[in-house]
């Protein structure tokens, strides 16, 4: 069932990103350099508010984040010149920290539309139903789930499973997982990690694991660990760096102890189906 994907290298060079808050531009990313080669897993660890989600959203093309300098390429192709959906079709995937509710759009319709877009043709219905069902059962998701509206009324754990379900079905070249571990109990953490590991076992997908805790690294062992502080990578190393962070926190980077989870990230999305207040 594995759809073979050739890998691709994501290169982020001197990336500067701003968001507009209260009418003023605020620089969040202050020069990020990062290279993800096919099959590699990188953990990005950093305190709340250091800009980890901003990095993820900027690479995915969220309109709220403006790239003011730097480059992002995927196998040499200019990612920043692509629209949001072009980036996804080029092989980028973002598992969101706060997945968005889309009322009235069923999970099955959503997944099939996404698979059709990413694969360039509609998957054969019979095969697709089987593929989706199997992927859901591996993630220990109830079959009835596919008839629910996307993310609407999902528990935190259900939302994260649903993100990893998409990861498994869409088989991206590079996956950025933004705090996929936060808010999960031990069981859910195991199930979700196994999903990520199945994708890694394909050998070609590059994975960027954004996390707050070392907990998930017991299940998914990274090849590289980066410490993210104040909008840039402060230090890079191997898995041992995570242990060091666990023991000593971020103090040596000029930040207070490992702050608890619960960073604001994106302002929680308005859940009014399809509607936001006029500006």
């Amino acid at each position: 069932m594995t759809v073979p994907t050739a890998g691709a290298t994501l290169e982020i060079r001197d990336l500067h990103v701003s968001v507009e808050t209260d009418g003023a531009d605020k620089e969040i990313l202050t020069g990020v350099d990062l290279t993800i080669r096919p099959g590699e897993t990188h953990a990005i660890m950093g305190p709340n508010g250091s800009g980890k989600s901003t990095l993820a959203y900027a690479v995915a093309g969220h309109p709220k984040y403006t790239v003011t300098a730097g480059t992002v390429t995927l196998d040499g192709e200019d990612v920043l010149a692509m629209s949001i959906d072009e980036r996804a079709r080029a092989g980028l995937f973002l598992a969101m920290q706060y997945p968005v509710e889309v009322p009235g759009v069923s999970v099955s319709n959503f997944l099939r539309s996404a698979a059709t877009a990413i694969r360039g043709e509609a998957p054969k219905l019979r095969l697709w139903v089987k593929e989706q069902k199997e992927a859901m059962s591996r993630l220990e998701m109830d079959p009835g789930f596919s008839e629910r509206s996307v993310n609407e009324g999902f528990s935190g754990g259900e939302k994260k499973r649903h993100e990893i379900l998409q990861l498994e079905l869409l088989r991206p070249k590079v996956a950025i997982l933004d705090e996929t571990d936060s808010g999960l109990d031990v069981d859910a953490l195991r199930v979700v990690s196994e999903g990520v590991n199945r994708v890694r076992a394909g050998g070609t997908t590059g994975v960027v694991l954004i996390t707050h805790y070392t907990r998930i690294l017991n299940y998914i062992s990274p090849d590289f660990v980066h410490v993210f502080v104040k909008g840039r990578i402060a230090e890079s190393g191997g898995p041992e760096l995570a242990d060091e962070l666990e023991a000593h926190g971020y103090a040596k980077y000029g930040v207070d102890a490992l702050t608890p989870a619960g960073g604001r990230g994106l302002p929680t999305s308005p859940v009014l189906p399809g509607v936001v207040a006029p500006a």
Partner: protein
Amino acid sequence: MADVLATERAALKETGGITDGSIAVGVRPSTPRSPADVRPERLRSADPDAFVLPTGREEEWRFTPIDRVRPLLDAAPSAAHLSVDSEVPPGAELLELPAGSVDVPLPVDRLAALALARAGDALVVRVPKGAELDAPVVLRLTGTGTGEVVWGHVVLDIAEQARATVVLEHAGSAHYAACVSVLIGDGAQLQLVQVQDWAPDTLHVAHVASRLGRDARLLSTQVSLGGDLVRITETVDFDGPGGDVELRGVSFADGGQHLEHRLLVDHSAPHCRSRVTYKSALQGDEAHTVWVGDVLIRAAAEGTDTYELNRNLLLTPEARADSVPNLEIETGEIAGAGHASATGRFDDEQLFYLRARGIPADDARRMVVRGFFAEVIESLGVPALEERLMALIEDELGRAFA
């Protein structure tokens, strides 16, 4: 449906909602606090001359482009008809009965009174006591031209303990003024679906007047897509305690279209429940929707439970949605009362989420709008009808995102 409402309510609470209109507690309708709170007199009469000729300044006409309804207001009596095509399952009857032979709720405005006075025989669907229809009654009313005004009167007479689904579909070209009288006997249940799939030159002004007996149930869904101007007033009167009404609607207004839905739920009996969910999408210059939701809880209506919700999705900036919920409460002894109204543009976060999965922007927008309406349509529980209505909405979407 119940949990759709619950989610919406939570959502509105979370975002603070955007609520227009008023809740007046313990204020009699005749005690206005400001000019905006002057409620219509709610005059009901079968005599057209009991109502003033509207100028557009009256509360109940202020959103309606009066010039465009002139052809109806100024029209003479006529014998023109819509053509009627029907499916009547065993257990139901379709009859033509002379005006005045059925006791119906009184008109709310001049055009409704004129329609009742001029329609001649009423088209009556009758479902006898205790009957349970296993297929919907379908009436397809088709206009054949706008030369003469058609005055119409349709009666749905659902006797005690009966259960029925009635679909009233409108299509073609017409200048049509009508009364639809909906009589639901004690313990009876009616699911009523009305579809406005008119040609672009049609004017349709109607009063849908429901009267529910003790423990009766009405689930009404209005689907307004076509026509130049559609203005439908729905009134609900309760004849006894325990009535339960859900009024739902979806509208999709294109450039130049005026689609207006006005509701008045009059809680005069104790322990009745009402739920209102109206949604509209608007697309194009001068696309205009109006939703006015009046709920009156009278002193005798203890134990009333009511909630109304209106949501409007502006697909282009030049469209305009007016939304006015009004709740008047004359007793403190109620089970619940609330309203919410929100009008806005596409949610960028939803579009981002779909597009981040490779779905192109236009397809993503289409999915969001389809989902917006699907919440109402897919709760009808009549699969063939749901499919057909979603197909009509797809057509609208096809035009919107052409």
